[in-house]
């Protein structure tokens, strides 16, 4: 096989992942359901909904052939979806099964400040083996999320995020745009080298620190944890060198993500949005990563109906939206133009896997009632002369 033959074969194999024929199979649709966050069922204690979360180190396959270690809630990335009604009393038991510290921050929720999950400010970190109970009333309505707030840069892109949906029986969006189906999409971006190296380093440090803590030998300078800024300044005056000074720890490169995921998966493992002609679907978009995404839907305008969970005064029609880190947006897509349409980040660096297109957060909106004759959009079989002569990564 010469180089040219090889490129042609490579192109054919890569393109095969794009062919839509299998999208309509029932098995594909059933498997697709698993590509959305699984709902966590509550236990009911009186008038309180009780949820149980744990975090552990887990292996996640981002795309076929690519596995990475993650920090995962209940062995899932993203973590399971917590869905409650507005005003519900909520109790979340959070068990730390790792050798690292963690907390949970309820992003967008109006919780009591002691429940906000910011280490050393609202609570002490949940240390290895410990359990912390978060209690709050579910307010306000809308699409929110939860994530770890310890070592946030690392722990969030390592997988510690999940959706938190606060519903209302008389949903204002449903009134405007009656819908039956809805989807939750959590976007993230990952520098796998940063993740791997930092988790290893933190695991190693924590083995050492835990030994000292267990022996009652907590040392403020060693742990770089002080009771006040004045105490830190005093320590520096006495010769203490904080970890961030260059002669103590070399500045680590900030994470440079090169894997982009939706619900913990990169294309071709990203979820598919199914719709029918005449149907409206609600899509809840959550940016739990560090990158901005400019999401564009082909062939349609959609309605932006909620921003940070809050219903906007006037739904806004558009076909591209900016999803900033920490932001949640809800959109309504109306099934008005049947076909198979891509839905992707228009900063196309993020539709790559490790720098190679296609990949990343590339997804599809699929009309499941598309007539049979329209489904085979690229009948390549037996037509080798039509195969592109360029490999997709060139």
């Amino acid at each position, binding site marked *: 096989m010469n180089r040219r033959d090889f490129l042609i074969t490579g192109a054919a194999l890569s393109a095969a992942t794009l062919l839509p024929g299998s999208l309509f199979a029932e098995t594909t649709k059933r498997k697709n359901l698993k590509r959305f966050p699984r709902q966590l069922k509550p236990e009911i204690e009186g008038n309180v909904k009780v949820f149980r979360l744990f975090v552990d180190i887990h292996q996640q396959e981002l795309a076929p052939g690519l596995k990475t270690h993650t920090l995962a809630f209940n062995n899932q990335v993203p973590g399971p979806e917590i869905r409650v009604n507005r005003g519900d009393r909520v109790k979340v038991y959070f068990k730390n099964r790792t050798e690292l510290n963690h907390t949970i921050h309820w992003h967008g929720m109006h919780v009591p400040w002691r429940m906000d999950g910011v280490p050393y400010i609202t609570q002490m970190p949940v240390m290895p083996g410990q359990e912390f109970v978060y209690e709050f009333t579910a307010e306000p309505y809308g699409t929110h999320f939860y994530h770890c707030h310890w070592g946030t840069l690392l722990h969030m892109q390592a997988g510690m995020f999940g959706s938190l949906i606060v519903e209302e029986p008389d949903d204002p969006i449903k009134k405007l745009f009656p819908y039956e189906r809805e989807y939750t999409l959590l976007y993230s971006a990952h520098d796998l080298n940063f993740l*791997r190296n930092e988790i290893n380093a933190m*695991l190693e440090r924590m*083995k050492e620190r835990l030994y*000292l803590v267990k022996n009652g030998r907590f040392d403020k300078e060693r742990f770089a944890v002080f009771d006040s800024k004045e105490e830190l300044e005093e320590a520096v005056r006495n010769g203490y060198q904080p970890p961030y000074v260059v*002669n103590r720890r070399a500045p680590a490169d900030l994470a440079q993500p090169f894997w982009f995921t939706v619900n913990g998966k990169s294309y071709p493992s990203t979820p598919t949005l199914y719709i029918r002609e005449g149907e409206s679907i609600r899509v809840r978009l959550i940016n739990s990563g560090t990158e901005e995404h400019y999401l564009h839907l082909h062939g349609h305008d959609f309605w932006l109906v909620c921003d940070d969970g809050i219903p906007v005064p006037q739904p806004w029609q558009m076909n591209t939206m900016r999803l900033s880190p920490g932001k949640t947006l809800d959109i309504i897509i109306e099934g008005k133009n049947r076909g198979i349409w891509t839905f992707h980040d228009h900063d196309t660096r993020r539709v790559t896997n490790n720098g190679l297109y296609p990949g990343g957060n590339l997804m599809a909106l699929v009309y499941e009632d598309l007539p049979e004759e329209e489904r085979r959009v690229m009948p390549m079989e037996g037509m080798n002369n039509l195969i592109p002569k360029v490999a997709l990564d060139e």
Partner: protein
Amino acid sequence: MSKKRTSLCLLIILFTVMLCNTGSAGVTPEILLGARGISSLNLDYSPGGDSETVSDISDTSLLVGFRQKLYNRYRGALVIGFQFPDEGSDLEPILFHQVFLRVEDRTNIFRIGRTRVRSAMIEFPTLRDDDAIYFTDILNPFSSGEDAEDNQYGSIMEATRIFGQRYQLSAYGEHLKEETENISKDFGFNALGLSFQYRVPESQRWNREILNQIGISLNTALTSRPGYSGELDKALKSITFSTVLNIRPDPVHFWDLRHQSIFNLGFSEVKNLSDYSDITRARSISTFTSLRYLYRKLERPALQAALSYGYKAFPDLSNNSSQHQVIANSFYRIGENFDVGLQLRYQKNSGDLKTIIGEHETEVQFAFIYSIEQLWNSQFDDRESLLNLEHGYIP
């Protein structure tokens, strides 16, 4: 240094820098740069010895490594390194001590090339690697004894199988430097060996097990022993036993004990020591033991102190001969990667050894040591990372 070698060294450095700064259309490898600089003031109080050496830079070395994933679960690596040999050595000013390729997966390691031979199973806390070479290494029976590096570096072909993360079985063939006799044609094997050891990976050092390492090895040097025809009879056989005990595995005040014994089965006809070759071939027992204390401040090594004792006896000689050595040293870290060190070394020789090596040596060394290790293009995990060891291996 010859112009050719100088050019080669510069080329390696230039090549590395270029790779670090530019993108590549193909798979860019991981690039590892390791450097260690040792410069010492040596004060020699031995009878007839030099009074001082102003600047001893021996063992200063530079290593460049390249590594990438192969098409299956294996990884391939190339390591090239050079060092400055001992003062007074008859080697060239720069010695390429590491030039080898390695292919490995989770449980198998194959190495071919020039590197550290398997003459010792563990390392000891001495200023330089060869400070106790008579006690810590199986001596090269083909060497004239001029250069300590003859005992440490050679060509090697080695296969290692890892069981259950911590047990390693290695089989190896070596070509040791030949000066006193020409055994192998065309750079063939002149030494064979097997080793088996239990070893706690470095990343798990805070798991605080007492037993850190224990191992045994059998080494044979394929000599041309006069008067013997059978290969087994001609082979010079040594058995090595080693252990490292974490006697106080505390992250702040850490103590460990290292011990290695080498039983050289020797040749029965060697009854007197007249030169270095006899020392290598006489039946002998060598032991070396180090007690080390490490103080770690702010999760970094700050101070290390070690006391080591070596003893070597030659039981079959007509003239009772033995060696004793004491090494005391301390290293203080004055900055990340940068140490100052002070080492006292005393060695006493008796019997025939007095005429070959001298009756005793006393040396005081004051040194600066700077060691760095930098990885660029990190793209996969090490076999012995905590994630891979404790949370499932990812190829």
